[in-house]
């Protein structure tokens, strides 16, 4: 999975791109789940290890396909510096180590955004032809305005919790981005080192949104039904290192949660709803 670094490099130096999304699916069949890799991911994100895939893990399996699609010459947005702004995961049941998983990725909804253009990368995990897991990742390219972008989609992010005592305080150290990059294969340079992050306009390295999302979901272990939707809106980037607070509130049904800095700035607002 660390093989993605050359793709980032190619994407950074390659000029010219298309105006519209490629209308095709990238498919990978029989994607293996390496228990060693899964155990490392679980440790980095705070999940237990019991052979079930955390609901955020198939995103990691599908990430190389997402990147492969986004570095194609025809892809209308530049990959480096893309910001993950929204992620919705729906699982019918937890996937498990040893299942034969097929992955399908396609790009959808190229849309204007106040700060640029967004695109959705939709990953579907199938077992024996039936979709079991679906992840929709929305990325923002700041300042990009390809001509094929549609009208701005109505965005209603989960409200989060707003106030109350935190369920947990996380001391997020400076190595978090590098550790998650190692465990997930997502080696976007803005997560790895302050200097690399500065090149893309961030004062310090920032945590992967999917790490924050995974760690928040891990905090609900034992409280979730097997089938649920996890809808996450990413707000301010989580600069490393930081101390942040997780808040959770039982919804009827499901959970609302958010992750905020101690000054109240939200990094993530999310909702878990049973299906």
């Amino acid at each position: 999975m660390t093989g993605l670094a050359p793709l980032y490099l190619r994407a950074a130096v390659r000029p010219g791109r298309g105006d519209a999304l490629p209308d095709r699916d990238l498919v990978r069949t029989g994607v293996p789940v390496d228990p060693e890799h899964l155990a490392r991911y679980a440790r980095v994100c705070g999940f237990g290890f019991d052979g079930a895939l955390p609901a955020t893990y198939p995103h990691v399996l599908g990430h190389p396909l997402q990147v492969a699609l986004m570095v194609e010459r025809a892809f209308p947005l530049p990959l480096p510096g893309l910001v993950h702004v929204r992620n919705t995961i729906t699982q019918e049941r937890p996937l498990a180590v040893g299942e034969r998983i097929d992955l399908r990725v396609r790009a959808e909804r190229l849309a204007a955004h106040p700060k640029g253009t967004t695109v959705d990368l939709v990953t579907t995990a199938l077992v024996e032809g039936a979709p079991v897991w679906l992840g929709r990742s929305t990325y923002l390219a700041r300042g990009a305005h390809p001509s094929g972008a549609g009208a701005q989609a109505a965005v209603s992010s989960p409200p989060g919790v707003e106030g109350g005592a935190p369920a947990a305080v996380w001391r997020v150290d400076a190595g978090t981005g590098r550790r998650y990059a190692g465990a997930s294969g997502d080696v976007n340079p803005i997560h790895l080192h302050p200097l690399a992050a500065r090149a893309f306009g961030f004062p310090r390295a920032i945590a992967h949104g999917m790490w924050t999302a995974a760690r928040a979901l891990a905090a609900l272990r034992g409280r979730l039904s097997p089938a649920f939707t996890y809808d996450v809106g990413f707000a301010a980037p989580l600069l490393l290192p930081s101390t942040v607070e997780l808040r959770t509130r039982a919804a009827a049904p499901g959970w609302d949660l958010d992750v905020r800095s101690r000054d109240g700035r939200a990094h993530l607002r999310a909702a878990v709803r049973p299906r």
Partner: protein
Amino acid sequence: MPDTRRAAVIGGNRIPFARAGGAYARASNLDMLTATLDGLAARFGLAGERLGEVAGGAVLKHSRDRDLTREAVLGSTLSPYTPAYDVQQACGTGLETVVAVANKIALGQLDSGIAAGVDTASDAPVGLNDDLRRVLMRLNNARTLRARIAALGGLRPGQVVPELPRNAEPRTGLSMGEHAAITARQWRIGRAEQDELAAASHRNLAAAYERGFFDDLVTPFLGLTRDQNLRPDTSVEKLATLKPVFGGPDGTMTAGNSTPLTDGAAAVLLGSDEWAAEHRLPVLAHVVDAEVAAVDFVHGGDGLLTAPVHAVPRLLARQGLTLQDFDFYEIHEAFASTVLATLAAWEDPAFAKERLGLDAPLGAVDRSRLNVVGSSLATGHPFAATGGRIVATLAKALHEKALHEKAQREKGTGRGLISICAAGGQGVVAILEAAR
């Protein structure tokens, strides 16, 4: 306070036991215990249920696993309003948690509870070198620069070597196997009878799996559906080819008739009869009584693993029973020689008189009633998980027999005896009785 009542064994759940460094090499105690509690909750419809308490424990425990059992409850589907605490009594841990929860149920302090245990030899704690730890503690306590420099002066290159856990007694420096070999020699336990006991354990466990006995006792985990140590095709002939590993070159204890290091977890659901009825759950058996004993294995000449030899006669005397009043005997197979030495001691008139203070020995155990569905030699022995494994297994075996007897209009005693030896010269024993 109500009169005392007998706690009911409602059922159990465990994960298959794995050989150290095997299928569960990447799983922690917390992972295994949480999965086992979740499996129990799924089997008995306890998701979201507030139970009286969960008592659990592990023998090899990381310092970060303080309150391991409570953490497992918080990560499980059980209600977070379920209290929990840790117990540790070496290999007696699992049975001791059953005794603790059962006693509270007997006194009316609890209506329901889970007794559990877990251990991993694959993810065992590795400590800081103890000399280095002392230097760091001194440094941490130093208030002045001079004191800090003085503390740092205690650093030595050799301190980078960490402390690895050893399966040895702190006071004697001998491993458990070496201790057991002394006892085996003392009781003249032969190689052939040890190999026979080991072969029987594998044969019985394999047969029990084949007839589905463990279908409602074991939940598959990380790809394992049966205990990884089980060798259905082993035989006395194959076991006879192994070289001795304890007791020197002419020793009788081999890797085949000794229990290997193992990873796993087990849990037992206990409750009052009323609680079980309210939840429409069956009662397999009741916890009748229990006894613990300890021996002086350091200076007193006792064998390290012989405490149950003393515990059982005390338990029988209190209950007015003889050793022959049982349908099943579950004697934990730490080593085949341990089981055989225990049986030999109970049959020995001189030992009864001199060491147990009895006029007559307890006598022989009907071997066809011993470890009838296999024991630790075949399943493996994740230290704290063994008690839960045995209690759930015996309760089910007693229940099965009671059903059979009802159909056949026969009548046995309905009783089962559990005997578990533990490091530190301790032993925990208990009596279960089939629910009628």
